[in-house]
């Protein structure tokens, strides 16, 4: 990458290190930090959407929908999330392949579950066997995002349902007295007011989501944990690295990355909380009003 790196003989000490840390492999390592950020930025709104749907379903007047919402919000309570992560990815993967199998190979006669194996017709493989590496990676990433969204959505649903219940009853009653329909009440009164109650829980969830990103590694994505293990060890499957076991230092780097991300988020969320408290009928809102006056 750097110009003076072209001649390996002259390299020593710091200049060697600076060249070594800019090799293409290391660039992939740095790029994987972006993968993690991308996952956070995509999974958070997706989880929020799942959570919103779940909370609405759990409060629904239609019984089957309500049961569905309740089951979804209750599902995450007693079970370690990691089990979900392992389970969902395989379940989603097999589910999608099973569906495409039904569509593309209707007259396939062999059973899909042959004893211990899961076998669909070649045409139903997702992604196709001949697809490029990029497609395979993108597919794995999408599955990971979906898994994160479903699992975190259940947590978000809990938070949002609590927030919807926390909006003062008088506000809803006033809306009804003004003749707003239930739908209008929901959209114009309930939703704008619930965020201030939801924010503590959602902030917590965001911090937890940050800390859950190393699980990408378990879902088979080449994320920062993968590269830190790979580049840090003294040898890989094919060749030796020109250094001893550096994994401790690479993981120290990851630790610093996560701590920084947590700290920045905490500061940002504190500001957002302050902002959302404006004009709310809560203690925080009242304090802001008095300070301004």
């Amino acid at each position, binding site marked *: 990458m750097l110009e003076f790196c072209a001649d390996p003989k002259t390299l020593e000490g710091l200049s060697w290190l600076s060249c070594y840390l800019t090799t293409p492999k290391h660039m992939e390592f740095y790029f994987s930090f972006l993968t993690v950020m991308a996952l956070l930025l995509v999974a958070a709104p997706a989880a929020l959407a799942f959570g919103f749907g779940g909370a609405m379903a759990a409060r629904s007047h239609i019984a089957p929908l309500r049961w569905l919402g309740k089951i979804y919000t209750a599902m*995450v*309570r*007693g*079970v*370690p*999330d*990691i*089990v979900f992560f*392992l*389970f969902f990815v*395989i*379940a989603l993967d097999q589910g999608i392949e099973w569906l495409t199998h039904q569509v593309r190979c209707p007259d396939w006669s062999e059973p899909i*579950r042959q004893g*211990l*194996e*899961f076998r669909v017709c070649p045409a139903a493989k997702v992604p196709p066997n001949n697809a490029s590496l990029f497609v395979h990676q993108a597919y794995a990433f999408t599955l990971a995002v979906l898994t994160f969204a479903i*699992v*975190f959505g*259940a*947590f978000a649903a*809990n938070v949002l349902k609590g927030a919807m219940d926390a909006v003062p009853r008088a506000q809803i009653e006033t809306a009804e007295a003004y003749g707003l329909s239930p739908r209008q009440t929901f959209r114009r009164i309930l939703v704008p007011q619930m965020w201030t109650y939801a924010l503590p829980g959602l902030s*917590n*969830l965001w911090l*937890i*989501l940050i*800390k*859950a*990103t*190393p*699980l990408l*590694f*378990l879902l088979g994505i080449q994320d920062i*944990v993968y590269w*830190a*293990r790979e580049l*840090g060890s003294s040898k890989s499957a094919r060749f030796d690295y020109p250094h*001893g*076991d550096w*994994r*401790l230092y690479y*993981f*120290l780097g*990851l*630790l610093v990355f*996560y*701590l920084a991300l*947590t*700290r920045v988020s905490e500061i940002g969320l504190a500001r957002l909380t302050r902002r959302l408290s404006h004009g709310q009928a809560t203690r925080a809102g009242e304090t802001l009003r008095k300070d301004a006056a």
Partner: protein
Amino acid sequence: MTCWETVQAFWLRSVGIGENALPTTNITLCDQFVLIGSGMLWNLYFGILALALGFVFAIGLALAKASRNRWIRKPAEWYIFIFRGSPLFIQFFLIYFFITTVLRGSVDVFGLFTIPTAWLANAWAGAAFTLFLNTSAYSAEIFFGALMTVPKGDLEAADAYGITGRERFFRIEWPTMMRLGWPAYTNEAIFLFHATTLVFFSSFPAFQQRGDALYYANYFADKTFNPFIPYPIVAFYFIVLTLCLIGIFGLVNKRLNRHLPSHQRKRIRLRPQLIR
């Protein structure tokens, strides 16, 4: 092999007692239930050990964080921030690599004598140690919060009676702190047990296939290509464990609150919390 024979052969497999060879063909539901249950022994071991040791350390940390002396307060704040602000997964790796690359099997103390440290690289020691450090930080934050909400009146009453120092802490602050922090601590305990599943992914190796619940679940998922049975079994065991924990901690909560009228008691509410 009948199911009862399977139970006898495998229920202590995870600690190395009983039948040695794991089932590879004709895996029955019974095999899966028994072996995963056997693996749960390790999850219990990790959880109980970390919780018991962490409880003591956490109270020390909480007191340090509440200290007025900044030389005591700052280290405690940093410790809590580092362990709460980073993923447990990364902490597992870091501590594992620290043990294997820095300690390298033994530590020389000024050339006088050497302390063997190779045993630390095993899951039963290293992973338990990491979990202990981690849960201490989370519990310390809970106890610190509880300590900060001890009613002012209680402390003033203590002053008025001339109760000071150690006695004030152990007779006034500590019982109230426990009472106020207990519901949150119950959640911490539950999610610590859930976090023990991560041990399987931390580099700490399972010795001679003596693994935790997830180790066997993963083994069966690999062998049968069917995740739909072993993982729900793990989930089932954990739900049972969670219910037991709520029961046990609820009894303690009852005792801590026994002097209060029923409407002032703090209730245990299960609050969802994810991976650390």
